């Protein structure tokens, strides 16, 4: 008996369950799964996200400031809009989806196939509580941390590397950024990461617990999950862009 999560028909039902069962986080095994998910997602990819952020910041600044000769102000503006505003979220989401996301899909799908959801129900645990809620929250927290580490490294690493390899110095670039980056933009970016991370977490749970699964279909399942995650990324960014316009 594979035993899908009872009552699950899609991501919508996961949202309902998510709100109803928020109190389950008080239970030790549920909070343990949450922190494990954050560790796997955020800490496991923290340095990679930071390294990619520093390189992305550096290549953007050096191209615009020195390559095109457009100066510090334009360079920092492009960094703010392109790298901090768009690329950070995309790169962090891609890291999360390709690593812990796919691992989570297959872990949940194998649990379902091996009858472990039945075991959870037999010991009186609703699989939603232990598997869906902490994963959705864990992915949300992980994406926020990864995106922030990418952004921070893009600024600090990008400015430092640009100062090292061009005539632009570190402090004027920081001053230019401070002048054009309102604090609420950071809040919007964090909220967007939380929402997108939560959606990715729910997609992981949906793909692992509800969608058809067999070990021979793993490549198709991976492709389907990646496609859905990319669509979610575009939709969430689109909605936030509309709200902010």
């Amino acid at each position: 008996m594979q035993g899908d999560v009872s009552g699950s028909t899609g991501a919508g039902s996961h949202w309902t369950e998510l709100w109803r069962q928020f109190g389950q986080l008080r239970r030790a095994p549920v909070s343990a799964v949450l922190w494990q998910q954050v560790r796997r997602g955020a800490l496991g990819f923290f340095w990679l996200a930071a390294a990619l952020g520093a390189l992305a910041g550096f290549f953007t600044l050096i191209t615009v400031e020195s390559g095109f000769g457009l100066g510090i102000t334009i360079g920092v503006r492009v960094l703010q809009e392109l790298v901090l505003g768009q690329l950070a979220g995309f790169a962090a989401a891609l890291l999360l989806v390709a690593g812990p996301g796919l691992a989570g899909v297959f872990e949940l799908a194998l649990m379902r196939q091996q009858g472990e959801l039945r075991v959870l129900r037999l010991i009186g645990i609703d699989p939603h509580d232990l598997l869906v809620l902490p994963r959705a929250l864990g992915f949300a927290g992980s994406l926020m941390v990864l995106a922030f580490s990418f952004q921070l490294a893009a600024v600090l690493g990008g400015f430092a590397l640009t100062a090292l390899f061009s005539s632009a110095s570190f402090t004027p670039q920081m001053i230019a950024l401070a002048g054009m980056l309102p604090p609420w933009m950071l809040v919007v970016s964090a909220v967007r990461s939380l929402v997108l991370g939560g959606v990715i977490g729910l997609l992981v749970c949906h793909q692992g617990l509800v969608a058809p699964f067999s070990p021979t279909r793993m490549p198709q399942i991976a492709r389907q999950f990646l496609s859905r995650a990319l669509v979610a990324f575009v939709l969430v960014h689109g909605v936030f862009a509309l709200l902010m316009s």
Partner: protein
Amino acid sequence: MIEIHEMEGAHFRLGRVLVPAGELVAVVAPTQACAREFVDLLTGLAAPRRGNVRLLGQSLNDTAEPARLALRARLGFAAQEGGLINHLALGENILLGAAYHHGKDAAALDARLRILLEWCGWPADEAREAFLRKPADATAFERAAAAWLRALLGEPELLVCDDLFQGLSADQRRRLIEASVAFLSEKPGRGAVFVLVGDRLVEELQPTSLFYLSLRGDFRAESQA
């Protein structure tokens, strides 16, 4: 404690069964599928095609899933094959139910675990080494004992064991049976149901009640009161 009225599943039929508290019951199933289905119907994980089950005073037909989950939290379920979460170590599996439902502190759980280990004759040092292993890397006894410990750590009213003794030596089976008897004797009102595949181990178990599931539906019940 258990009241079954004309239960009919996909694999078997069962007539009227009444099991009062304090009994050690053996249910002999002809196949693993039969045993599994019986556990599912007994615990309300699946609905019978016909009939009704009253478990711990509650009719499963009239109970919604959240209430069934709460009811199952009062049971202890142990199965050696397919009874553990494979990506968790044995120790994590053992603590899962008790930590989830009762949120006991580590010292209380540890004290109870020591008693249970003593009952099943598993040396504490040896057991704690095994607790670090995943189910796939553990021996049959380690898996069976871990499932049994998880079931009893939550201090259930009814212990349900599904084909727990598969692949165990006579001595290992005896240790788990004696430990289960110790659990029943510890507090009045507790019960235990051992679902066995085939009747080879009935004599070793020495149940107070014995029921046979039949593929053909010709159920016969014997009570060894």
